[in-house]
């Protein structure tokens, strides 16, 4: 081989590791630098999340760093100019922070709830939530409410673990994998890594999705479901499983509440609650003695034979008690209720086929395939383990059916119950946290539900007593005032959305501008593009942001935005606090937050700056600690008001949530040799930097499965602060919590009840204690003959929401989105490729361009999310296709449901969790007239920011002169044909 030149001058290169933040997957990266320029970003092969691979976005980090839309300095809206007009002036950091602190100080001293602090796609909710609690406002939440709280709540109120970022399929053992409504998800790289593993092992991959692209492309079977009907499909699967006696008796009896007894006492406040004794212990029916016994005893004592099925009457006469259990009470096991409900013919495949758009034989076959894999292809892992009762098991038995689901399920107003229905299937198959099934990622599983209640009490200058967000267990836990009216600005935890565990960010601007429930003073937005792609009804939201009262003052007086780029939201801000990029700052990705853990290891990680700052911007983390110190938050200052922490790094190192527990779990203790729990370690950051910026605690083999019942795991989880106690995590197929709300709706609850019929009816209708399906709310209210199509979105794998259109490489892949339709359906309507069409919803209309495709449910249209941009934002020219042809569906989606007579405006959200129902959208489509082209609506061009450089017209990015590989002239002259001179 001829000698090769030296292509790279390695001596002048340095390699640093950190954590990617081109999206929330948070992969480990190695960044090769030449001076302050990035030569190459690659995956870190040692990293537990991505194991060396990197997605398209991660690979485009250079162009994010080079973005002309990067903010360069703090800005204030020019006095006397209109909000949204884009007139800004630079302001020094010092002045900006003084200004903001003064404003906040006044709020905090008087009425802390007049500060609303909401954060978007961030992964530092532990910090922002801490900050809000210290400030003393309950008006804090992150993006979960408009993102996927249905998945979190659906899981946490049933199995203690959930889909979304909180668990993963067991890619190494699953033999059957069913993917429900996922285009990309947060585990962007891990899912891809996993799918490959599955396919190489020959497992079957079934994708349920109205559209066949991306992951669904490689599925062995594609089920092109009609949107919003997955719950019905899942329950029909359940029907088939029951009909064919395919459910895991053992699993149901041991680990779920299916043997517990539901009280039958219609018209009383006990109806539908679970039978308990005076000590509050749940009861089962002991077949051996034909009497009740406590569930806990039945778990430990083999002589108690808990009945799975049956309807019983406790002995004695009405009014009396035996062993603390009410006499003469009619009870039925949870499993009986469940079987009765799902065996009903309404769930028979032939009766759901037309609604879901899948033929009955297929539905039945899929259910029986899963049953086959679960029960006839059972796997074992020969590791002895001990359950919580102390019983030793010789091996882990696996039912290798795994599922994963995301926004195709959660972004519907029936998403919570649908998610529960999918979990129900897993539970019936015994496929929860066992080999081959869906596995929790530490700190999950948690007890159902985690014992944190949302804060409601507030007082001036006082931190909240509990976090703003938590898990209501009964109507008493709602955040409503004495009259039952919402107390939070987003109306989370009100009767309209009682289990709104992640808040309802999508309602904040609407409510605040209407002063409903009350006006606020300041809105701080961090990493959320609320005047564009993350709001429903974008055009009117922009108007609301400009809306003034009769004195000419803005109804939303002051908006502060922390962003790193010139987004649409920056344009609508009064104060802009520019952030660093992910390559320029220290950051923690904490176990107190959204975990980056893997199923078999608890992990956390950090970011470190790999390139030097060249602008007057500050990490938001630093800014938060700084403001909090100026405001003298008790956790940040000592008794005489002095700063406890020098800066963000110091805060992370030394602050403890509970003794020994802080933001970072690795290398704790004075000498850095304690993990998970330990005293602060002054050198902790360095330890992370020395360890590729992540920490991984691998679970020992005996702790890896059945963690809801695994003694060793449960004890460890308690010891490291994941769970409050080491008792078992019982899977709640029947949710007493939901039943309590339903009783409140029925007027039977012994406690708070809603004060109006609308809320009552919703509680009765949607709070079924067993997984249930109903027609999505928008579909219930619109004329479905007119609005005949479902309209949904998908995440493009190479774009992250709004923030990658500024990326010169990624936008070459896509700078315009189309409306995709089923080919035959489109042609039948006279619509062909690239035609412009009008798309109309009950709320508004848009004009966009169509592409026809095969892999699309005929009743569905869809597009890629957040490609459309407001002209002038993101450093793009006003001719950029993103703003001239690209479009958002958000204009069609109303934040309120179509109104009904006499009813107040109801949020377009899941009635249980308040999850934004983006994908309930129904539309009507017709061809635009000849000559009607270009996107509609279009928006005013956004002005450039002061001192913002012109975007370059050509790029020649490279870090060094290329070393050309020369061909010798001799070779060029002498070589005949190809290498050997002969044609092969």
């Amino acid at each position, binding site marked *: 081989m001829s000698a090769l030149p030296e292509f790279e001058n390695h001596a002048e290169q340095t390699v640093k590791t950190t954590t990617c933040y081109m999206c929330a997957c948070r992969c480990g990266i190695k960044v090769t630098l030449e001076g302050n320029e990035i030569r190459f970003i690659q995956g870190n092969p040692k990293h537990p999340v991505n194991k060396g691979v990197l997605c398209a976005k991660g690979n485009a980090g250079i162009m994010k760093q080079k973005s002309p839309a990067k903010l360069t300095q703090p800005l204030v809206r020019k006095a006397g100019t209109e909000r949204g007009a884009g007139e800004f002036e630079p302001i020094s950091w010092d002045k900006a922070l003084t200004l903001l602190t003064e404003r906040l100080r006044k709020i905090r001293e008087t009425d802390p709830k007049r500060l609303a602090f909401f954060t978007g796609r961030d992964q530092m909710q532990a910090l922002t939530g801490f900050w809000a609690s210290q400030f003393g406002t309950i008006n804090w939440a992150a993006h979960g409410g408009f993102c996927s709280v249905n998945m979190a709540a659906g899981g946490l109120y049933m199995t203690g673990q959930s889909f979304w970022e909180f668990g993963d399929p067991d890619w190494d053992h699953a033999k059957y994998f069913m993917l429900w409504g996922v285009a990309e998800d947060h585990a962007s790289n891990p899912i891809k890594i996993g799918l490959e593993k599955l396919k190489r092992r020959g497992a079957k991959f079934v994708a349920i999705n109205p559209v066949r*692209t991306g992951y669904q492309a490689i599925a062995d079977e594609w089920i092109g479901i009609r949107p919003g009907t997955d719950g019905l499909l899942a329950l029909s699967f359940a029907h088939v499983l029951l009909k064919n006696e395919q459910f895991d008796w053992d699993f149901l009896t041991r680990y779920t509440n299916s043997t517990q007894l539901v009280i039958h006492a219609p018209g009383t406040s006990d109806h539908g609650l679970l039978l308990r004794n005076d000590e509050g212990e749940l009861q089962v029916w002991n077949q051996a003695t034909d009497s009740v016994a406590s569930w806990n005893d039945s778990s430990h004592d083999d002589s108690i034979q808990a009945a799975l099925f049956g309807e019983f009457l406790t002995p004695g006469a009405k009014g009396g008690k035996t062993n603390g259990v009410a006499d003469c009470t009619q009870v039925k096991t949870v499993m009986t209720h469940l079987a009765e409900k799902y065996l009903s013919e309404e769930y028979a495949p032939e009766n759901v086929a037309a609604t879901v758009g899948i033929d009955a034989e297929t539905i039945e076959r899929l259910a029986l395939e899963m049953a086959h894999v679960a029960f006839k292809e059972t796997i074992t892992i020969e590791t002895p383990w001990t359950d919580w009762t102390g019983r030793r098991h010789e091996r882990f038995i696996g039912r290798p059916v795994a599922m994963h689901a995301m926004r195709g399920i959660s972004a519907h107003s029936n998403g919570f119950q649908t998610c529960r229905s999918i979990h129900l299937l897993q539970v019936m198959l015994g496929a929860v946290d066992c080999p081959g099934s869906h596995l929790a990622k530490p700190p999950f599983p948690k007890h159902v539900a985690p014992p944190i209640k949302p804060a409601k009490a507030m007082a001036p200058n006082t931190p909240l007593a509990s976090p703003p967000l938590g898990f209501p267990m009964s109507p008493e836990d709602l955040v409503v005032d004495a009259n039952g009216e919402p107390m939070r600005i987003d109306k989370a935890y009100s009767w309209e959305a009682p289990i709104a565990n992640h808040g309802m960010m999508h309602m904040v601007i609407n409510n605040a501008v209407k002063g409903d429930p009350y006006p606020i003073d300041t809105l701080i937005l961090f990493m959320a593009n609320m005047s564009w792609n993350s709001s429903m009804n974008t055009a009117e939201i922009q108007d609301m942001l400009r809306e003034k009262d009769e004195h000419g003052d803005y109804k939303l007086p002051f908006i502060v935005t922390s962003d790193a780029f010139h987004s649409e939201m920056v344009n609508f801000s009064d104060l802009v606090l520019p952030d660093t990029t992910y390559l320029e700052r220290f950051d923690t990705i904490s176990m107190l937050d959204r975990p980056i853990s893997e199923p078999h290891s608890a992990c956390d990680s950090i970011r470190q700056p790999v390139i030097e700052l060249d602008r007057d911007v500050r990490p938001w983390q630093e800014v938060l600690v700084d403001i909090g110190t100026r405001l003298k938050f008790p956790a940040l200052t000592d008794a005489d008001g002095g700063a406890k922490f020098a800066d963000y790094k110091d805060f992370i190192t030394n602050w403890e949530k509970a003794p020994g527990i802080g933001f970072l779990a690795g290398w704790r203790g004075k000498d850095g040799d304690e993990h998970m729990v330990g005293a602060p370690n002054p050198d902790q950051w360095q330890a992370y930097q020395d360890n590729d910026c992540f920490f991984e605690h691998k679970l020992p083999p005996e702790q890896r499965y059945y963690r809801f019942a695994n003694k060793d795991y449960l004890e460890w989880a308690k010891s490291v602060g994941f769970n409050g106690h080491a008792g078992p995590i019982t899977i709640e197929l029947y949710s007493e919590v939901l039943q309590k709300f339903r009783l409140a709706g029925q007027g039977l609850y012994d406690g708070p009840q809603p004060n109006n019929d609308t809320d009552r009816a919703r509680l009765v209708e949607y709070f079924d204690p067993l997984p249930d399906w109903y027609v999505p709310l928008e579909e219930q209210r619109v004329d479905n003959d007119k609005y005949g199509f479902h309209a949904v979105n998908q995440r493009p794998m190479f774009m992250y929401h709004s923030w990658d259109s500024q990326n010169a490489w990624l936008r*070459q*892949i*896509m*700078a*315009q989105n189309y409306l995709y339709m089923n080919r035959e359906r489109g042609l039948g309507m006279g619509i062909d490729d690239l035609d412009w069409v009008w798309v109309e919803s009950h709320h508004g209309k848009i004009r966009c361009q169509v592409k026809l*495709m*095969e*892999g699309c449910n005929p009743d569905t249209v869809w597009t890629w999310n957040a490609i459309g941009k407001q002209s002038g934002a993101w450093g793009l020219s006003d001719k950029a*296709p993103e703003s001239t042809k690209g479009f958002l569906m958000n204009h069609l989606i109303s934040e309120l449901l179509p109104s009904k007579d006499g009813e107040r405006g109801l949020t377009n959200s899941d009635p249980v969790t308040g999850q934004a129902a983006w994908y309930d959208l129904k539309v009507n489509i017709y061809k635009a007239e000849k000559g009607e082209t270009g996107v509609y609506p279009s928006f005013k061009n956004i002005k450039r920011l002061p001192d913002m450089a012109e975007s370059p017209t050509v790029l020649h990015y490279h870090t060094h002169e290329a070393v050309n590989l020369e061909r010798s*002239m001799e070779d*060029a*002259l002498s*070589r*005949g*044909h190809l290498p050997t001179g002969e044609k092969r």
Partner: protein
Amino acid sequence: MHPALSVIFFTVTAGAGYGVLFLLGISRLTGLTPDASPDQVTLMGVVGLVLVTAGLLSSTFHLANPKNAWRSFVRFRTSWLSREAVFAVLFYPVCLIWLACDFFMGNTTTTNFLGLLTAFLCIVILICTGMIYASLKTIRQWHTALTPVNFVLLGLLLGALILGFMLASQGLSTATLMSVALGVVVLAALAKIVYFYWIGQPAGPTINTALGFTRATVRLLDVGNSSDTFHNKEFGYQVDKVKLIWLRTISMILMALLPLLLISGVFGEVGSSTLLLAALSAYAGVFVERWLFFAEARHVVNLYHGFQRT
């Protein structure tokens, strides 16, 4: 294929020049220009050379990096473009010496031999140019022997008419040349008709073979870029069907029918103005023909960009 004007101008104009020089080169031996004096031959030869040179210069506009154009002689062993370049350069001294001989020595054996050699090189170059396109398996509309045949015939056609005009305008006899021209026009038109018929036949790779899925329909879903790329700019060119028929008709009328009628005396006596008209018409006709040659060529890579067949 995107029809680049510089390349069209080059192949048409240089082709005409080679046509002129070919006919001049063999004229003494074949009696095409029985009454031309050596300096008249030389003058006409110089006109031919000017055409060739103008064409060649234009061709360099097509190069993105013309400073390396000199390197194009290197791969004579395999590259038709290199061969064209080598012969084109070889051609100059031969042609110049011949013209000088003709000018200074008149009708000698040496002159005639050099004339023949020049004529031979002209044909070789026309064939090379044709082969540049004909050798591309990626474009079935080009990958045919008809391509070099066409380049040669159209070069000769233009050459004959231009030469005829030059003879007539100097009052020289054009009779023999015109009968040759008549034959060339007819042949060229026939060849072109055969060509049109041939490219109209379904053949060549389809999206099914391109992708390896031959048992069902295959359609492009996403090309992977929403704006332009080098490929769609270079290869994505498509002409509307109706426009295509029009252009084909226009080119056939201009390059064949009208010249044929003109030189066969249908519109009256064949004088210098008739021949000028015929030459101009043919030039315009061939220009359109050459535009179509590119515009109608469908590169196989288009299959990956949404075409069903080539």
